[in-house]
């Protein structure tokens, strides 16, 4: 091959390569749709959104799994959430919090939020021999598929995204707080600085970049599992396959997308 032939070949090679790439791209998109957002398995900081196109919310439906037995009540998730999302530090404003349940042998149930040091906290510790069961329950917005908060918002400031996350547009919220009343899980609060409703977003700003929510990222025991319900390969779907799953207040027909494994019936 002389120099001339080489240059000719080069001129043809690049456009042809580009063309092949364009033709192949939808197929490639399909193949990676499940795992692309880096929200799976080892996930976390690895995969970037596809280089070819923008993030496509229709290809995802996010949820969270919580393994009660793995939660050690360290509250790192709560701290990470407050730092990541500018949640006020005072113990009246939470996007996520941890509840501690103590059930005694005579079926007496004591609940406390370990992030709120109220009167009586820690004083309630019973005689160990009387305790039947004790466990922690991380709580957060359930990102309901059928959310009452979205239904009642008078101006449409709170809405469901196509990828299954309920968000609040702080530039539109009028602060009527009907959504706070309508949420059966008390997952919403009025942010004292913006004076608008605020709640867990599954760290949407991170998730669309292929990162994990802050609470999931820092959980030392992997009690929180974030994932895509549309991907069979996701850790969340695996968790739901391997465990008996329950959601909170199912009778209210809100279709929560926070799934609890090993949940006790006492938890509301």
């Amino acid at each position: 091959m002389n120099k001339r032939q080489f240059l000719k070949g080069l001129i043809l090679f690049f456009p042809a390569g580009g063309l092949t790439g364009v033709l192949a791209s939808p197929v490639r998109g399909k193949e990676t749709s499940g795992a692309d957002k880096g929200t799976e398995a080892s996930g976390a900081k690895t995969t970037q959104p596809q280089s070819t196109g923008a993030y496509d919310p229709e290809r995802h439906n996010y949820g969270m799994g919580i393994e009660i037995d793995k939660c050690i009540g360290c509250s790192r998730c709560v701290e990470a959430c407050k730092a990541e999302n500018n949640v006020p530090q005072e113990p009246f404003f939470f996007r996520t919090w941890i509840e501690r349940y103590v059930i005694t042998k005579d079926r007496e149930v004591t609940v406390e939020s370990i992030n709120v040091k109220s009167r009586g906290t820690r004083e309630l510790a019973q005689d160990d021999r009387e305790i039947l069961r004790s466990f922690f329950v991380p709580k957060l917005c359930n990102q309901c598929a059928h959310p009452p908060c979205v239904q009642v918002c008078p101006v449409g400031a709170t809405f469901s995204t196509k990828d299954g996350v309920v968000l609040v547009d702080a530039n539109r919220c009028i602060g009527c707080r009907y959504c706070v009343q309508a949420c059966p899980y008390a997952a919403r609060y009025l942010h004292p600085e913006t004076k608008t409703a605020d709640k867990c977003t599954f760290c949407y700003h991170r998730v669309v970049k292929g990162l994990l929510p802050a609470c999931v990222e820092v959980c030392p025991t992997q009690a929180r599992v974030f994932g895509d319900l549309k991907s069979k390969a996701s850790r969340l779907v695996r968790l739901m396959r391997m465990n008996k799953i329950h959601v909170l207040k199912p009778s209210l027909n809100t279709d929560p997308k926070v799934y609890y494994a090993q949940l006790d019936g006492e938890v509301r």
Partner: protein
Amino acid sequence: MNPERIQDLFDLLGQVTGYIYPNEIEIHWSILVVVYPYVTGLVAGAFILASLVKVFKVKEVEPTYRLALLTALAFLLVAPLPLLLHLSQPMRSFEIFLTPNLTSAMAMFGFVYAWYLMAVLLLELWFEYRRDLVVLGKESTFPMSWIYRALSLFSTDVSDRAVAFDLKAIRMITIIGIPSAFLLHGYVGFIFGSVKANPWWSSVLMPIVFLMSAIVSGIALVVFLYMVLTSIRNQPIDMRCLDTIVSYLFYAVIVDFSLEALDFIHRLYQSEESVKILGTLITNKLFMSLFVLQILLGMIIPLGILVVARSRTFNDDMRKLLYFTSVILIQVGIFSTRWNVVIGGQLFSKSFRGLMAYKMEVMGIEGLLAALALLILPFVILTVFIRLLPTERMEDHVARTA
């Protein structure tokens, strides 16, 4: 963030009993949201009383017809203010009109309100007053003459045909107005009744209970105003009118009482998951406002008074005294009803494991003084209306004084 508010929340934390979700410590719907359904209830009730005259031809009630309409308007003008002051972003309130979310009961507020104000109340008042306004415009001196002419929208026709048309229009508007008044207040009940997350509110009876209590409070208010107005003007009270209105009031109270009792018994008998915490709520936090103020003072005692007043033959003065006492007690009772619904519904945790506390501000924008100001304001507006517009038809007045 306001450090005083934070300190208040810490104080409230000390008053929590049992377990509440951490975000629940702040009571979001304050006294102003109590004032709102109370005021709209008065509007709806006063209008229903007025429509007795025009649609159901209850002639005895005629002397209060105009007063009832003006009362409804004065309170309707104030009705959106507590909501506006309550918003934490009041400058964005117009968004309810611009981008309403059609699945939201609250988003319908703007439309229901605008419909009721524009299509019902203002229109009916205009037709009712048109003839008098034309006459007053001619008789008064500048600048009042111009005000009256502007209010009559510069119409001049006072022929019999025109007046007959006015009456026909009023009747039509009232027929549309009754369902509209039901809508106005029934929808306020729906805002609460449709919140499935809150078992204290979530009840299909809520709109109906709101409506009946609205009728009770509205009628009681007009009776109160009629008695006060005649005594200020040194005029005799039309006892036939008063007796008739009070008998309507009596039946309305009985229906209201029965509905609330039904709601109570139903909850108790169904005994759902929430029944324990609601039981603690009413015996603990709401004992005073529910059992003492709402049921005893606001319902049983006035009902007893009305039964006595109707069954015995008292002289006019004694009857006036009894009626006057009962309508004031009824107002206290209905205000407590609103309080128990709005505040009561926020005093127990949705975990059904604990109770919160509400500390009313005194000064602040959502405080007691603001609420009192909003309750006084309609009376100020009403005074202006009454100064401006005669509360009885001018020809009737002329005939009576002659």
